[in-house]
């Protein structure tokens, strides 16, 4: 780990390979000793499903039973964008990016694809309550659309920070507000009333889809959007 460059000397490489093999075999042996019968929580989850507000057990675990983990995980994502921005990378354009921005093929494809992708994202989020899908899947598709738009340089980045930041934080904000708001009702943290669970989960997931999608696309950009916007305008003026 102390990073001695690419290990080029033969004997160090041999030792490393031998160690890895021994370590790997140890893990394999461990894997074979794991119990074969299902030990998990499936049996605990099932009887509680009617109270969860949704019918997809994964969504029930993510947004209800273990919603606290998910709240923190959205926090990790928000932290990631803040952390990346704190590095204040310089806006650079690689040759590939310039080519992508100029080729008409990409522009055409983007016009065709982005609306469809957003539709798919909406569907994935909505279906998440009953089948495979949800805010993360939807958000990933939104992010894909965002990356395409960024590559084709077809979206003007906002110069004002407030609007974009509000969109980024709103999923986390609503989730947190709902979590804390339940205390006002005399419930525990994040304890939805069962009859309201569905609508609350759907609202949280909808905002999360937008926030997650935007966050991932902006992580791809890396540069602080206001800074990139200045660069963008400078290039447009040239």
């Amino acid at each position: 780990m102390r990073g001695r460059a690419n290990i080029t000397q033969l004997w160090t490489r041999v030792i490393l390979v031998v160690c890895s093999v021994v370590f790997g075999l140890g893990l394999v042996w461990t894997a074979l000793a794991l119990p074969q019968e299902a030990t998990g929580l499936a049996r605990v989850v099932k009887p509680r499903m009617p109270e969860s507000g949704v019918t997809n057990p994964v969504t029930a675990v993510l947004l209800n039973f273990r919603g606290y983990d998910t709240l923190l995980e959205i926090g990790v994502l928000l932290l990631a964008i803040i952390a990346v921005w704190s590095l204040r990378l310089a806006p650079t354009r690689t040759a590939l990016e310039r080519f992508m921005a100029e080729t008409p093929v990409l522009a055409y494809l983007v016009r065709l694809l982005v609306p469809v992708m957003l539709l798919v994202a909406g569907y994935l989020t909505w279906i998440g309550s009953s089948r495979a899908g949800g805010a993360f899947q939807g958000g990933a598709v939104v992010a894909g659309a965002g990356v395409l738009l960024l590559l084709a340089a077809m979206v003007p980045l906002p110069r004002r920070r407030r609007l974009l930041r509000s969109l980024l934080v709103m999923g986390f904000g609503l989730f947190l507000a709902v979590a804390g708001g339940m205390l006002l009702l005399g419930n525990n943290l994040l304890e939805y009333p069962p009859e309201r669970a569905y609508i609350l989960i759907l609202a949280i997931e909808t905002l999360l889809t937008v926030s997650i999608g935007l966050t991932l696309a902006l992580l791809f950009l890396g540069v602080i959007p206001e800074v990139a916007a200045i660069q963008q305008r400078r290039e447009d003026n040239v």
Partner: protein
Amino acid sequence: MDNLGTWIVWPILLPLIAIIPIFLRKRSGAANVSLVTAAAIVLAVAGLARQVLTNGEQSHAVGGWDAPLGIMLHADGLSVFMLMMTAIVGAITSIYAAGYRFQGGGDSGSSSGYFFWPLSMFLWAALNVLFLAADIFNLYIGLELLSLAAVALVTLERKRDATVAGMRYLLASFLGSLAYLLGVALLYTAFGTLDLELLGARIQPDLPTAVAIMLITLGTALKTALFPLHFWLPPAHGSAPTPVSALLSALVVKASFYLLLRLWFEVFPAALTPAIAQMLGLLGAIGILWGSFLALRQHKLKALVAFSTVAQVGYLFLLFPLASTSAGWGVDAWSGGVYHAFAHACAKAAMFMAAGTLAYAIGSDQLDHLAGTFQHYPFSVTALTLAGVSLMGLPPSGGFIGKWLLLNSALASGQWWFALVILTGSLLATGYVTMVLSHILLRPPDAAPIEPRNTRVSFTLEFAALLLALIALGLGLAATPMLALLRIGMPFTGY
């Protein structure tokens, strides 16, 4: 009837809520929101402490779902102790940071001075999440939140050294997390629960458990910088902006240590065989000697303080062999180790702050350039000295109580070799603290008169360091109530 008086949720909720306005604002707004939140967190922790003292341990089922389905929050004496440590150091560091001038440029919405606030608030949230968690996967997310915030804080000022140190820290941390996660995956696959208490009840001494414990311990030891996994710490802590160095050395390394403490004593105590306990203690002992030795060889003040952290982390691990030998002295050793963590947090944060103030004032971090600074910055030098007293373990400091309890149990349990290490460590700490002070106070006759570059150091900086140093010193006087608090929910019977 609302449920707002459930104090246990607020140390987690408050920093998370504060992040939203901080994220939307610019520098001065962010600083103000952070300072108000810091005060609120201190109050919330005090509220929780009162609740635990009067009613005993507190539990909260998040989402209203009890374990194993849901995630529990749990607060006992140890949790509250760690939360208090975090609240004190966090709040005073925030005050320090408000007066600190971060380098690295940018306007008020994108400068290092701005980004410190959201990142440190995430760090604080993560620490509180960890100290209240009762779920092994929830601990994982807390650790990740903590590591990411910590690394981003190290690289805040865009200095080359710090960027490289940050990358090394990130990779070490990444690896540690994966080892931990694999351990969690194995435990869940084998026992079908993530709740710490249930896991402790179900755990079997078989191969997957042993491997999982090994992976979790390795991963966590990497993050807490136990010798020989400490290589990333000195450059990262030494090159970070001063308020960040204080937070990292005081709090972040303690979080992963806390995790080890919880897991070894409460989830798999049966696995803590004498051999393993001696092994952890031995690594701690080598860490004490090696870290102190290297601290003595440093020429830069902040690097010296960072190496001292490697040594002080070593003391924490003496707890394992001393406390696991059962009977009466186990309680002493356990309390001593934890007390040492608290005292070290205050002392080390104070020391970093004072060191940072001096370095900023004279424009140099070299020990040789410190001569004569006492006349200009008496408060900072006093803070440095008082913090040093706690590190050396002299009465009445908090460090004295911690080391005394550890020493007592080492002698009572007949493990004299650890007693020897504790004493030698104190001696070496005296050595490096004296070395710093002699550079400050004794001036070679032929030296040029020093001219402070920034004679006007904000009083906030000096005041914050001094306040923390005084707390470190005063901790020794508060030992009786603090030790009583620690006993609530302690994993020992028959004390």
